[in-house]
């Protein structure tokens, strides 16, 4: 039987190095798995078991019980299913939309040149800020913002044009990522007011919109690097041959960037799946998502570990399944085929 640690090619590691690598990976796997295992085991305990002290192995240390599972899945029934469905819909749709919109923007930032003028940008922000302050001070919002828009348009032709200095692509990119700096609590109440004005409170549409907006910067920044590292020759030769941008993107860029796209999709999906604070503020009965249920297990009289463990397990299962299914797209094989083919 051939050793699993044998050298498979000239550039592969030597067997002892491989063994070392394997052991290190195994150690980290244990570090990752043990808390999950503990979570799993706790979901089968009663409150009393949890309080009595650590029990490790079901049937050996303690009597496992399905009471927590029954409670979450049946007693709470609809109160678990509804947030679950919401999380799935909101997570998937916001990630897909963010991925598409963000990747296109990232590609544009890498291949096109933009030069928005400082004057125009400053004027826009200024007019908008004035409109907001007017709205807060009591003016009807629609009038305030339309007036702001009008002011901007009128002044843009005169004052805005004076300042010739322009921003560049990297400034746009920095502006995008700087959106993530402000902690969600600062924007939670203003967002609440915003969605209240358009009657979208307690509606998953509000969540989807917000998550797309908050996760776009991540998509743009991650995909920017992937696109930038792609060899330009392929696109150049296709352009010279007369292919349009759309064609190039679809037939050449897209297949090569699959690893990056999949990795980014998973990350953004996870961010949207697990987001807590915005969901807390924007939803109440109908649009609740799973993270709220997890946090809610912290009863006023102490966390209910057993119920919480069940919730966490059912929450991570679809994401893990998706990661398993998509993992192979992050591998080398497909890439090599695309380049050589």
């Amino acid at each position, binding site marked *: 039987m051939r050793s699993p640690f044998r050298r498979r090619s000239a550039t592969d590691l030597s067997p002892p190095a491989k063994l070392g690598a394997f052991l290190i990976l195994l150690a980290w796997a244990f570090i990752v798995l043990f808390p999950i295992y503990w979570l799993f085991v706790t979901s089968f305990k009663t409150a009393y078991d949890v309080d009595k002290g650590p029990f490790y192995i079901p049937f050996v240390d303690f009597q496992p019980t399905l009471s927590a599972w029954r409670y979450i899945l049946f007693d709470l029934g609809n109160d678990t299913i509804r947030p679950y469905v919401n999380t799935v819909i909101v997570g998937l749709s916001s990630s897909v939309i963010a991925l598409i919109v963000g990747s296109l923007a990232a590609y544009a930032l890498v291949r096109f040149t933009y030069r928005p003028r400082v004057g125009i940008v400053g004027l826009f922000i200024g007019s908008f800020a004035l409109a907001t302050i007017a709205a807060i001070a009591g003016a009807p919002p629609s009038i305030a913002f339309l007036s702001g828009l009008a002011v901007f348009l009128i002044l843009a032709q005169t004052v805005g044009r004076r300042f010739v200095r322009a921003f560049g692509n990297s400034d746009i990119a920095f502006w995008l990522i700087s959106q993530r700096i402000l902690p969600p609590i600062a924007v939670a109440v203003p967002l609440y007011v915003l969605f209240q004005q358009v009657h979208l409170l307690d509606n998953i549409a509000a969540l989807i919109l917000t998550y797309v907006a908050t996760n776009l910067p991540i998509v743009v920044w991650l995909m920017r690097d992937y696109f930038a590292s792609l060899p330009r020759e392929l696109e150049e030769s296709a352009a010279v041959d007369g292919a349009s941008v759309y064609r190039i993107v679809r037939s050449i860029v897209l297949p090569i960037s699959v690893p990056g796209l999949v990795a980014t999709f998973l990350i953004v999906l996870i961010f949207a799946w697990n987001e807590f604070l915005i969901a807390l503020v924007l939803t109440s009965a109908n649009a609740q998502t799973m993270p709220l249920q997890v946090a809610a297990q912290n009863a*006023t*009289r102490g966390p209910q570990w057993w119920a919480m463990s069940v919730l966490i397990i059912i929450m991570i299962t679809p994401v893990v399944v998706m990661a398993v299914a998509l993992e192979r797209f992050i591998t080398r094989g497909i890439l090599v085929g695309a380049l050589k083919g």
Partner: protein
Amino acid sequence: MSRYRMVAAAIIPILVLTACNSSASPSPSSPAASTPAASTSASAPAAAASQGTKFKGANVNILTFNGPQVAEPLQRRAPDWAKLTGGHVNVVAVGFQTIYDKALLDASTGTNSFDGYVFDPQWMGDFVTPGYLLDLTDREKNDPQLNQQDIVPFFRDYNSVYNGKNYTIPLDGDFHMVYYRSDLLTKDGLKPPATWDDYLTIAQKYNGKDLNGDGQPDYGSCIAKKKGAQSYWWIISVAAGLLQGKGTSDGAFFDTSNMNPLFGKNDAMTLALQTYAKTATFGPPDELNMDVGGSRGLFTTGRCALTMDWGDIGTLTPGTYAQDKTGATITPGWKQVLDRASGKLVPCDATTCPDAVDGVNYAPFGSFGGWSGAINAKAPKANQDAAYDFLSYMSAPAQSGIDVTLGKTGFNPYRTSHFTNTAPWLAAGLSQAATDNYLGAIKTSLDNKNFVLDLRIPQTKQYEQDVLDTAIAQYLAKELDEAGTEQAIADGWNAITDQAGKDKQLAAYVASLGIKK
């Protein structure tokens, strides 16, 4: 370019149109001031309502805590009520941390998606002043289903009253008691602690001994002290007996004449802080990060001789090691009390502590106040009536009598009938002796005229959850000493008071302590 001009030209007519429309309809930022329904003249629910159709078609949204406690009994009994009245209750349960924010945001922005709330009556200061809650005084007085006279005076006349009017329906009676291992104390011929010095003595005696026969040393006292949880209420229980001596209207938080924080630089506070810190020396090593679930768990598995808690331990012991080994007693008091003028401690006598029992000034603390139902003043009248009826149904002796015996509801006794009828308690698994002892302790506490009302003025959360909690946590972590802690609390409270307007806050404080005529 001309592009801009075109767009600008298009905007102007739109602006004009919008301006015309806005003047017609009220703008959302200042919701139309609909006069609160003339609640004071609301008639009592018709006694002869036909079965199953009184509130047919009504869909009531009640905001409450996603427990499982508190939400559980509401969700369990909603179908029964629906059968009786035809109305549908939608229990919107959210995490504890956010009920306050959600309710306030919902009411203040005019969203009004909730018809009623089951929440903390302590927040009344923030909800009643802007007019968000419906006045329920006459409804409750004339409601046979509610049976208002059955409710114990403290919860009826103080806790649900603000500025002389009833705004909430009690569903739960929250206050602190001390629990002890009755088997240990009986064996050693000790009486339950009457003062906090007794508490410390007993704690010291049992600390480090094996109290549940598993070979491991256990603890004398377990009091949850985690920051950012519910721990800030315990210090109030320790200090109250020193700060309030002349009855509920005396108040335990501020001086009623000048809004001076009582939780400030005085000898009473110093003594209370030192006592509180001492209990930690007889407790588990990670007590500073333990919340109530932890201390409860330790007590029920027999690892603590003493603990302080709401009423829950009584109903949680069946099926655990501590079953039939648990006794409850009124929160320990003090034999001295604070003289507010001098800031010094004076002994307890007939003038300084008129309600003292055997020379000890007890001050049972109605911490949190007990989950109560309230009605949104801006909800449609039909929904208000339906919501009120549902909450009154929940509070009625028939239903609440059973709910308070069940640990899973999170509801504790608050009606006289809860004490006189012992059958449900026995059915829940308590022995007769345990029931008598538990109910006896509750009754003793509720009968005490020096019962302490939790702080119920505007910004109460900032006073307690922000300033007090942080200062106490810093004290326990030895970041501040007693003087520094007292200064921090006093400065913090004064800053909040000043920012909200000292006169307003003083008036609110005095009003919150007043008794209903």
